[in-house]
């Protein structure tokens, strides 16, 4: 049963600290997406990759957020320095891009609280 995994599931940190969230996409998938979900803003796309190349990170605050795919089995989202307004649930999703099929498989999320 292939699944997207995310670590950590919960993270509490203090303002100014660095936060790194990790995602393992489903083996064989070639697209990876990072989303942020809050009550106020709903579900926002932060960045996405195809074949490990970043295609769109326009939804991400560039001064403090960075997203990378060091290899096909790992995607990371880093916040440095973190701020209380970054508190949210961060989801990773992966998919296999082919004509007409954009089904995305979501991980369980990382719940981030910045104090």
């Amino acid at each position: 049963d292939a699944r997207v995994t995310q670590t950590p599931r919960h993270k509490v940190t203090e303002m100014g600290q660095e936060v790194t969230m990790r995602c393992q996409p489903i083996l064989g998938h070639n697209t990876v997406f990072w989303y942020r979900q809050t009550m106020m803003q709903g579900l926002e796309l932060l960045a996405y990759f195809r074949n490990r190349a970043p295609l769109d990170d326009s939804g991400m605050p560039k001064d403090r957020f960075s997203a990378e795919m060091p290899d096909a089995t790992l995607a990371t989202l880093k916040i440095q320095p973190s701020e209380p307004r970054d508190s949210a649930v961060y989801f990773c999703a992966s998919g296999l891009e082919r004509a007409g099929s954009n089904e995305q498989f979501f991980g369980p999320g990382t719940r981030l609280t910045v104090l």
Partner: protein
Amino acid sequence: AQSVAQPEDQVNVAEGNPLTVKCTYSVSGNPYLFWYVQYPNRGLQFLLKYITGDNLVKGSYGFEAEFNKSQTSFHLKKPSALVSDSALYFCAVRDPLADKLIFGTGTRLQVFP
């Protein structure tokens, strides 16, 4: 620009009654449309999609959705609601120029016993 609208923040329905969760879309070209469900403290789960073909699409857990091109709608339906269907439902449309999905704001479905 591509977009979807979910006009209802919440839908309440009694168990056993039919349910409808509304979605309208705006897209250039042929739309690729999706429904996802999110249970509490979980990630989104794929329910169904419309790419081409029959306007009535059947998906997981007894859900179906009807694509209506003239009304630019893709409403989610189920003939008989269950309490366990209570969750947050998202409609999404694919950006035709990219891999990404554009999600609606979500509709909370509450099914009462």
